[in-house]
């Protein structure tokens, strides 16, 4: 062990400097004990990054343990760059979701773009070829004068996601977009990527075998995003501006060649481990790789390719320049990898080697600048059980406010369809290539996207969901609901859920009310995961989403992937995309409503968007009723009975029927025996399906077996949506509804 010496010009580290690096006195004390001395400046930077919330999960770890993470399909659970599940026929899927909230608020285009870049690298470092992305976006108010800045953010984020994914050639096949004033000061940009690979081709980010070389590949290192991980672990305040690091600029072309070259290198047989450089750059990639392999690393920082010669060791270790990877290869065989990389026009340099010291030793210009034990810094980062208590105003939030029935349900429907929240999202997703790679059977605009898996008879389905209002009113129920809705969306296309990833977006965990929300949301999600048998295989936590003390609504975004085992059971080749994409395409088909209304309005779109009220209890999620509905839907799909299916979610029954009618430009006539208010209830575990008359008996019998209430309510046909209810009727040309719905978002983003 060498004792590193401070370089000329570097400050001597003390507890004040440590506090500037967001280390508490205890954390700093622990670090000194671990090293047996004071850390150098470079070591302090490294430790603060590894101890940051973003890298260490110190505030969320104890809660995350509540998630179920195993099933017979799980190949790699949380802890790798992306989780991996077996999807059958010799194939596995790797997927994960990541937030890029803070950078996107500062510079929407580059922030969102580099968010997509980061998540794609997480997937292909596993050896999987990315085949699809989703994006889950939350913005603040975009209307009127005050919305100008927000409209700029919407525009930048959407262009950033599009330009990056389009250039790399990965389709964005779905996502969600919400607007709420709680995001005025902190928008959320959550990007999800899914890749597939043969089951025997999976790689992990492990450094092993003393003496094996460590190669650096991709872009050169610059001053971008130094301390991004730490910044993502702090709330915004008036000083954030000053601390702002150089913005990371995405280079999707380099990402694309890095993707191709990495996959080719991994096929070459000489690569042992691969890791991308994400948050905390070279620091986290080297420490984490070494920790996984129980090894150490020696790095010569003079060999790291730099964009500017003046970078210090501290900056080199903490830079978050994009599109960079490290490879560990068999000793003596690195040439093969270098050749592949250079054929793709990429620079590669050998920057160090694996050791069996269990330490990270960094040298720069002939001096040792850091010498730290790996394992205790990575796995031994502090874990906090932060005080948690229901927010003081919870009781007030949950006060039930009576909901007035609409005087004119058709007008209420049109008002809802005309909000950016429920309106058509085509303005967004037509900026995303959704068909490249030619797998997309159902793209954006449906409950779940469906991709065929070439070379197999099966398909993958994917969706992302969360309802932040529900979570704000009752985090446990909101957490359950997010999972339930995602699984339900998959069930509408007949897909069996195989794994979940998530992105937990919350305010500061140092606030007990928020710590409580985090714990409760996770608990609710975990309950639902267990009920539906969905393992959590990866995820990401984004805390400190607050500005001047205003936190975002709790937003635990959930993305779930499902498998449709045999597509040909569900429909014929020629109609699959219609049948699975909401459907409703055959006149005279019967319409059946599944599930029963519970008359719940807390946090509903009706209450929120039409009456400006957000109060009461969100709809209760009866896990058994949900599971029964999911089983029924999957069985009906597998039996090929359905010509269409859509679950009831935001807005309730009437909105769901309108969405179906709009989707195919076909009307329907139906009758229900309830009052006008129930048309807008968001009671859970419900869906509407269409099917040929000859199949209704089969469906109703199956529903009875599963214990799902089912009623035939009408028939497809014509060009009007007609719904009779107790004491009145809604009757509108489908085209009128379509127009209101289609114009909502383009008008709002102006």
């Amino acid at each position: 062990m060498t004792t590193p010496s401070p370089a000329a010009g570097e400050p001597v580290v003390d507890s004040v400097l440590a506090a500037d690096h967001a280390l508490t006195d205890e954390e700093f004390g622990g670090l000194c004990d671990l090293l047996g001395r004071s850390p150098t400046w470079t070591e302090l930077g490294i430790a603060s990054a590894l101890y940051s919330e973003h890298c260490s999960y110190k505030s969320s770890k104890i809660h995350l343990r509540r998630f179920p993470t195993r099933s017979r399909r799980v190949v790699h659970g949380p802890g790798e760059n992306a989780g991996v599940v077996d999807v059958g026929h010799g194939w596995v899927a790797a997927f994960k979701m990541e937030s890029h909230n803070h950078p996107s608020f500062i510079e929407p285009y580059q922030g969102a773009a580099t968010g997509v870049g980061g998540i794609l690298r997480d997937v292909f470092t596993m050896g999987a070829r990315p085949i699809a992305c989703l994006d889950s976006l939350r913005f603040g108010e975009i209307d009127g004068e005050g919305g100008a800045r927000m409209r700029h953010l919407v525009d930048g984020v959407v262009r950033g996601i599009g330009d990056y994914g389009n250039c790399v050639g990965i389709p964005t096949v779905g996502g969600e977009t919400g607007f709420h004033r709680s995001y005025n000061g902190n928008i959320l940009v959550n990007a999800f990527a899914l890749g597939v690979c043969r089951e025997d081709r999976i790689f992990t980010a492990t450094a092993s075998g003393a003496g094996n070389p460590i190669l650096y590949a991709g872009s050169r290192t610059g001053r971008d995003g130094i301390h991004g991980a730490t910044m993502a672990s702090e709330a915004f305040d008036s000083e954030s501006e000053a601390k702002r690091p150089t913005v990371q600029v995405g280079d999707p072309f380099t990402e694309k060649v890095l993707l191709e070259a990495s996959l080719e290198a991994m096929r070459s047989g000489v690569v042992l481990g691969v890791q991308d450089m994400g948050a905390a750059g070279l620091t986290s990639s080297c420490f984490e790789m070494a920790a996984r392999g129980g090894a150490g690393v020696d790095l010569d920082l003079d060999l790291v390719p730099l964009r500017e010669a003046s970078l210090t060791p501290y900056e080199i270790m903490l830079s978050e320049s994009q599109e960079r990877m490290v490879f560990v290869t068999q000793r003596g065989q690195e040439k093969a990898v270098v050749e592949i990389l250079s054929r793709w026009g990429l620079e590669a340099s050998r920057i160090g080697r694996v050791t069996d010291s269990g330490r990270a030793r960094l040298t720069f210009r002939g001096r040792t600048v850091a010498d730290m034990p790996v394992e205790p810094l990575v796995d031994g980062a502090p874990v906090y059980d932060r005080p948690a208590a229901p927010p003081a105003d919870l009781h007030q939030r949950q006060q039930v406010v009576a909901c007035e029935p609409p005087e004119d349900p058709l007008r209420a429907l049109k008002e809802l369809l005309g909000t950016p929240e429920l309106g058509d999202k085509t303005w967004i997703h037509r900026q995303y290539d959704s068909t490249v790679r030619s797998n997309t059977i159902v793209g954006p605009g449906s409950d779940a996207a469906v991709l065929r898996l070439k070379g197999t008879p099966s398909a993958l389905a994917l969706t992302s969901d969360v309802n932040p209002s529900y979570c704000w009113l009752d985090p446990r129920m909101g957490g359950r609901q997010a999972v339930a809705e995602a699984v339900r969306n998959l069930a509408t296309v007949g897909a069996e859920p195989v794994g979940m990833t998530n992105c937990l977006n919350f305010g500061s965990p140092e606030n007990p009310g928020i710590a409580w929300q985090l714990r409760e949301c996770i608990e609710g999600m975990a309950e639902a995961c267990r009920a539906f048998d969905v393992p959590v295989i990866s995820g990401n936590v984004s805390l400190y989403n607050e500005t001047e003390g205003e936190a975002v609504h709790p937003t635990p975004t959930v993305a779930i992937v499902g498998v449709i085992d045999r597509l040909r059971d569900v429909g014929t080749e020629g109609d699959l995309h219609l049948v699975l994409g909401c459907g409703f395409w055959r006149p005279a088909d019967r319409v059946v409503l599944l599930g029963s209304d519970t008359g719940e309005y807390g946090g509903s779109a009706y209450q929120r968007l039409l009456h400006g009220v957000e109060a009461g209890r969100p709809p209760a999620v009866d896990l058994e009723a949900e599971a029964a509905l999911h089983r029924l839907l999957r069985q009906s799909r597998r039996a090929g009975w359905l010509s269409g299916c859509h679950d009831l979610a935001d807005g309730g029954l009437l909105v769901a029927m309108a969405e179906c009618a709009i989707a195919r430009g076909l009307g329907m006539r139906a009758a229900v025996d309830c009052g006008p208010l129930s048309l807008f209830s968001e009671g859970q575990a419900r869906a509407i399906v269409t099917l040929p008359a000859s199949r209704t008996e089969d469906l109703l019998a199956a529903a009875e077996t599963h214990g799902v209430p089912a009623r035939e309510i009408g028939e497809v046909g014509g060009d009007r949506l007609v719904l009779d209810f107790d004491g009145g009727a809604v009757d509108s040309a489908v085209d009128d509804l379509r127009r209101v719905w289609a114009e909502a978002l383009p008008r709002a983003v102006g």
Partner: protein
Amino acid sequence: MARVLVYPRAEVLDPQGRAIEDALGRIGFDGVRRIRAGKSFEVALEAEDERQATEAVDRMCRQLLANPIVEDYTVEWVSE
């Protein structure tokens, strides 16, 4: 007429410039030391006086033509 030149800030990555540099190298230009790729705008405008014109163009740059977080801009006045 104002001529506005907008370039990526010096410390920010300039993927375009890099790609063009490489492309020029591939097609046989070897003397190229560096390329910066940016945007240029010619703005013809009516203004009461020079001060007002300068001020207006500057505001345009900040609000629309350049993104101060990643870009620097310069304004020159040229005859039409």
